[in-house]
């Protein structure tokens, strides 16, 4: 590690050279001073408000001046190149946006594209000061009985990171192929994709440790010791992780499943290492629920064996209407609704004789459990319209009050 620090500290020695000092000063001047310059120039030149125009222009201008003066300008050109590359990421985002959903694009950009660009930029900068191949051989120290070099450590970290962050789409693609081949459900496909990711990341970590050259026996010994400590210290995390894996295998809580949480239908968005994220349609809220909860409590799901849901609306009609007519009208009304499934057929029932009306229930099936509330609303509105057309009264509760005379005054 000392060698690496000495190496990096040694790069400052280049500042002994006037050519390097001038270029560093130009870069500082442009990147730190462009704000003030833009503010001054903006009233006259509206284009000067845009730093993405001013910075490349200034850098290009300075590079040209240095070149014409016979001064080295490679560092300024590198600064220009890296800045243009950074701006170019916006174009990449726009291009990918045509094919990838916004949310996934956001993840891809923040977790993979921008870090990858920063990594490449850093390597390019290092490349100017030192030979990366040479730098990679610098030993960081002896870990787990083997000498770890900067290159092997860096490579291992990068590969594990890329596997953890970038295996999502390939895993989903593979799961999709399996779905096409074997015919598994959508929930199973998502679960399969997640399990493929876990397996690939696990293999990646093992490979990375092996690549770095760690002594496996030493790792096992340390892992054995740590497992006891971790078991006590962060047992909840482990419990949630194991629960998550179990739930995936079991198939009761998979991404895409619809569960009832506190009376509301919620869709499972993701099942992470620690917690599941569920989306509640009612208020567009995302619920983060520890995996362990599903493992220990009863879970109501509408997507266990199929995605159908039988739902019902309650309605009342006045006593003077024939219940058979009302039941037939309710069933006809439900059948006419586009989101109500024709089979199993809607069924209306007379529930009770109430104080001021007869209560009926109209039961019907829908395909998507998450649309329950909206479809019920549609059906109830249709019932009101049908009752109005046929003159069926939905009575208000009525109460007759008799005024009693008191005993005669003596």
């Amino acid at each position, binding site marked *: 590690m000392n060698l690496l620090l000495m*190496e990096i500290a*040694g790069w*400052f*020695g*280049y*500042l*002994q*050279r*006037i*050519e*390097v*000092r001038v*270029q*560093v*000063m130009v870069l*500082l001047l442009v990147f*730190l001073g462009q*704000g003030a310059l833009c503010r001054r120039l903006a009233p006259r030149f509206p284009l000067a408000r845009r730093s993405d125009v001013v910075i490349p222009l200034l850098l290009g201008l300075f590079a040209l001046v240095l070149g014409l003066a016979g*001064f*080295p*300008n*490679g*560092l300024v*050109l*590198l600064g220009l190149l890296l800045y243009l590359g950074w701006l170019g990421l916006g174009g990449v985002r726009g291009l990918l946006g045509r094919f990838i959903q916004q949310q996934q694009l956001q993840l891809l950009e923040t977790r993979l594209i921008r870090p990858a660009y920063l990594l490449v930029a850093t390597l390019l900068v290092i*490349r*100017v*000061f*030192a*030979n990366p*191949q*040479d730098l990679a*051989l*610098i*030993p960081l120290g002896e870990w787990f009985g083997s*000498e770890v*070099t900067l290159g092997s450590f860096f490579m291992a970290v990068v590969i594990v990171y890329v596997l953890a962050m970038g295996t999502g789409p390939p895993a989903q693609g593979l799961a999709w192929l399996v779905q096409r081949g074997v015919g598994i459900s959508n929930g199973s496909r998502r679960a399969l994709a997640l399990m493929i990711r876990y397996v690939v990341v696990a293999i990646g970590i093992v490979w990375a440790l092996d690549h770095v050259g760690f002594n496996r026996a030493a790792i096992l010994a340390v892992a054995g010791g740590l497992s006891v400590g971790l078991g006590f210290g962060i047992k909840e995390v482990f419990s949630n992780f194991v629960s998550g894996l179990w739930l995936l295998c079991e198939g009761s809580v998979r991404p895409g499943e619809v569960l009832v949480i506190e009376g509301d239908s919620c869709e499972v968005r993701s099942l992470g290492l620690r917690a599941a994220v569920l989306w509640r349609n009612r208020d567009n809220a995302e619920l983060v629920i520890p995996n362990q909860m599903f493992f220990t409590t009863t879970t109501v799901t509408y997507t266990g064996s199929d995605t159908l849901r039988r739902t019902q609306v309650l309605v009342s009609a006045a006593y003077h209407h024939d219940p058979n007519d009302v039941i037939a009208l309710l069933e006809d009304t439900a059948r006419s609704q586009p989101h109500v499934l024709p089979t199993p057929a809607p069924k209306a029932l007379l529930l009770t004789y109430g104080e001021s009306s007869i209560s009926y229930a109209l039961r019907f099936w829908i395909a998507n459990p998450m649309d329950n509330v909206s479809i019920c609303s549609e059906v109830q509105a249709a019932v009101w319209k049908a009752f109005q057309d046929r003159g069926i009264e939905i009575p208000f509760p009525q109460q007759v009050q008799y005024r009693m005379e008191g005993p005669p005054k003596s």
Partner: protein
Amino acid sequence: MIPLLRRSPIPPGQDRRRAAIRVVAACLAIPLLASVGGCKGRRMKPMLRPLEGTLYIAVGIGELAIDGELQKEIRWRTTMLQNTFRTLQPKVRLQVEVFPEESLPNELRLRNSSGLSPDLLLVNESTARDLARAKLIDTVSFPPTLLDQLDGGSVVRVRRSDGTLIGLPMEPQPLVACFDRRRVQRSPATLSELLAFSAKGMEVGLSLDAVSLAWTLGPLGAIDAVSDLLARQPVTPATRQGLANWLGWLRQADQQQHVTFFPTEAELLKELTAGTLDWIPCRSINLTRVRAVLGQNMGVAPLPSGPFGGASPITRERVLAFGVNSSPVQRQLAMALVRFAVSPLHQRDIVLRSQYVLPVNREVAPQVRSSSVVASMVEGRQQSLQRSKIRLIEGSSKEQREAWQALLTRFLFDDLSQQDALKGLIELLSGWRSR
């Protein structure tokens, strides 16, 4: 009434951003200002003031791939040089980088355009010559008193037509025979003995690389043929006969069960240290690596001679060349370091301590009597001096050397007849141009 002047309110977060920019600017500006100002507290006469700064040294490596071992070895050597040099200039720091010699031109183009060229380059003489031709390094002059101390042949090779030098020769690295004493009692003295020993089980490794294989040309009578072709002389029957003898011996050696040809010297070294090979020709700079594995079992001897004379190995001359972007102080330091590196003090030190190079300073006499390794290296150097034209092979391009290797490989695999191989070789050597 004059209204009070008030500053417009700063948007939230902007003051924090400005503060962050100031901190970053300060962090970057302090080293800059420090470097501009320098430490000028103590006023001393320029002669007495010790030089101060970092000196960047690029070390070019030829056949060997950069690995941890090689890097450690190079850093160790540099640390040794730095420690002794600090007795003269205590405030100097050497920063070393290792590059494959083939990538140096591109590397220097990039570095020079950024003002980040190394101050010194330790490279092969042929590479230094190419770099000087491409104006990627600075040519220099040294006083005759200094040059007179150095080996005359080495100085001539680094001198340009205008009298300047492409660098200063630092260490000749001759080619010798390395063997494992546990398997080989003594190194074969002749090529016939080499084949006889291999017939008895000695595992021999030979490299097909032109520079590494050139030592076999002399003993087999092909050195004049190759020299003539390289010098653009017309092809004569004697030229054909010389090359035919050489190709015939290569075929004969290849047919031996215990003789194996490898593409590069790096593979020979790997196999020798792994115990697969018993005898190989090796560059003296690699002796430390072999010794690290074989220890006392490492044997070193001169390369075998043949019916037409002694071996004709090419001694590699390592040269200290100068980068183009050094500051005046760095150039002063580089000059001082180079003078120190060829001084008798340091030359004696590297020969005595490591026994992997020969001194370039004539005032340092190699300890031939006390060390068989040094004696073998001296002999190897003598052998190479006798046939100087063959050194043109060293200046060949990568493509030419690859063509040489491909031709010989096809010949040894019976894909080409001896006649076709001879024809191809003549064509190749006739068009051999230095890089």
